[in-house]
């Protein structure tokens, strides 16, 4: 029988194959990222920003809550205040370091939750299709019909300020777009023959989603949610700026910007400092997300 299988061409197919090093998709992504120095640089920046927020108690030169009547609104470099003081005489550098904890949490956590919730909803909608898809996607469409900041303001405006309400409203803002991305990616993959082939083996739906769908839709979902982090940070600070997110005296970049705004005629440069932190963080996250997108070769 062996002589039937081993026609000369077959033998060539077996032997002539060059021995290549096989990389999985994710290894490939990692490989491409390793040589994308711009993304690596901004990735390092992001890590630095996150670390400085985590280790704020160690890094902060002063107590961020310690106010002082005589040291109000001092300029950059006044005494030990490296970045000056705010309207209550608190050290701005320390408040910025501590503020990063809240601002980053409010920016990242809603996107994480929305990725899990919205992503799962989208995958289910895309895979199951039919009526389930219609119910999920039409509901999502309703929330999609609000501009993001308006929805965030509406929900946290109605529920009142506070970090939890702010994060809740941001989560609700990001679930619809993530759900859509996941649904689109899933319904594209679902119609490919390999999913059909998996069904033909008698595999159950959950197994197919876990083994065959997830690996193929995770890329677009992750790229999209990474691009949402910067938006979320801007929105979170925006909410705090409006007095909806963080409540005083907690330090938060957006809230600091708001309270310092009253002092623009006295000490203009100091007033602008918290915004620089938001800007740099947002740029870094944006560029890392762009790098991820090209490394994962995803078109959104």
């Amino acid at each position, binding site marked *: 029988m062996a002589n039937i299988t081993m026609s000369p061409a077959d033998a060539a197919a077996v032997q002539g194959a060059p021995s290549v090093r096989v990389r999985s998709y994710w290894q490939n992504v990692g490989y491409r990222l390793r040589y994308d120095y711009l993304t690596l640089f901004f990735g390092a920046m992001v890590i630095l920003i996150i670390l400085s927020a985590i280790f704020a108690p160690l890094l902060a030169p002063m107590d961020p809550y310690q106010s002082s009547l005589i040291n109000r609104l001092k300029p950059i470099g006044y005494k030990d205040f490296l970045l000056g003081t705010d309207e209550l005489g608190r050290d701005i550098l320390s408040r910025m370091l501590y503020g990063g904890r809240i601002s980053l949490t409010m920016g990242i956590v809603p996107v994480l939750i929305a990725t899990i919730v919205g992503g799962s909803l989208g995958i289910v909608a895309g895979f199951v299709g039919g009526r389930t898809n219609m119910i999920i996607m039409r509901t999502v469409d309703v929330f999609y019909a609000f501009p993001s900041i308006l929805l965030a303001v509406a929900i946290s405006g109605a529920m009142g300020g506070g970090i939890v309400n702010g994060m809740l409203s941001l989560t609700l803002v990001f679930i619809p777009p993530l759900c859509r991305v996941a649904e689109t990616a899933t319904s594209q993959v679902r119609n490919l023959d390999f999913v059909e082939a998996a069904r*033909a083996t*008698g595999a159950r739906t959950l197994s197919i989603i876990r083994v065959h769908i997830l690996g193929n839709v995770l890329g677009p979902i992750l790229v999209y949610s990474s691009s949402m982090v910067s938006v979320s940070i801007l929105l979170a600070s925006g909410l705090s700026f409006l007095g909806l997110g963080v409540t005083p005296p907690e330090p938060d970049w957006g809230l600091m910007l708001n309270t310092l705004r009253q002092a623009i005629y006295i000490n203009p440069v100091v007033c602008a400092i918290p915004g620089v932190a938001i800007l740099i963080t947002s740029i870094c996250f944006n560029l890392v997300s762009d790098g991820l997108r090209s490394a994962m070769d995803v078109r959104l």
Partner: protein
Amino acid sequence: MTVTENTRPSQTLNAVDRKDARDRGGDRQPMLIARELKKHFPITGGVLNRTIGHVRAVDGVSFTVMKGETLGVVGESGCGKSTLARLLMHLIVPDSGDLIFDGDAVGENDGLSVRDMRRLMQMVFQDSYSSLNPRMPVEDSISYGKKVHGASEQEAKEAARELLTKVGLDPNLFGPRYPHELSGGQKQRVNIARALVLEPRVVILDEAVSALDKSVEAQVLNLLRYLKQHFNLTYVFISHDLNVVQYVSDRVLVMYLGEVVEIGPVDEIYARPKHPYTQALLASRLSMDPDDRIEEPPLVGDPPNPINPPSGCRFRTRCKFAEKICEIERPVLGEWLSSEAHVTACHMFVPRSGHSMANEAGKPEAAATVPAAAMAGED
């Protein structure tokens, strides 16, 4: 070797020479009986997206597949061949009709569950690229089915590696690779291995070699022949390539617009086609002989719209023998259950059908010669 050669080695190998422990009804019982399978896809449209019609993709298809044979399925693209394959696998649930697998009704309470049926019947898809998960080493794609049915990681991996060897791929070299690192032929070998991992009795090959280069196609056909004998398989071989079907099949089923127009042993069909459509199809084959060229296309125009097929015989709009009766009455296939029968759904072959060419015996007067000659364009 060329596929146009008229030797058909598969016929010499088709006898069930080893007893399959899973066999129930014996050699005489068909492996598969499909009875009146029907699938209409709704089409939506209009302002409210309501159903405004149905595509009659498969419209009452009946046939048998004998144990150990290769049943070729031919027809133009869009005639419902691929839908038929998916109906057999229950990837698409039929609107109506029965499927009987070695005596067990599929999907019915006292019969065979769909899940069990899928262990016994597997499918190889046409598009070798999209039928493999791009994010998975091909070894895992093969072993997945095994794991689904409860095999351990190690067992499944072993089975996958063994099958890779069987389909002519070195498991050490190809197992860890991703689909984009394989050629079309190699991918199709992997697809075949994947279909075989559950040790099925029936394999449906849906245009499995159509997308391949001719030389690769021949290799894969050889491989399929070897596997069939080695694993004691039964094939349903779907293709639009008449030469390939002639080469591999024991019996042939001809489809037109979701219906079976003719079924019979391969030699019978190719030597003495009955249905005008089969005759036209065969006449449309390109000849290697320059003196035997086709000068007129035997079939003109596109097939009619399957949403709104012609009344009576669906081929009548393109048939030169069409008469009044063809418009009024839908011709039936006749005794399709028998494996030796050569039957056709054409009024010319039904005694006293009302067609001028039908006679008492159910043989059209001179139809077997005249149309064939006319079709071939030899005036």
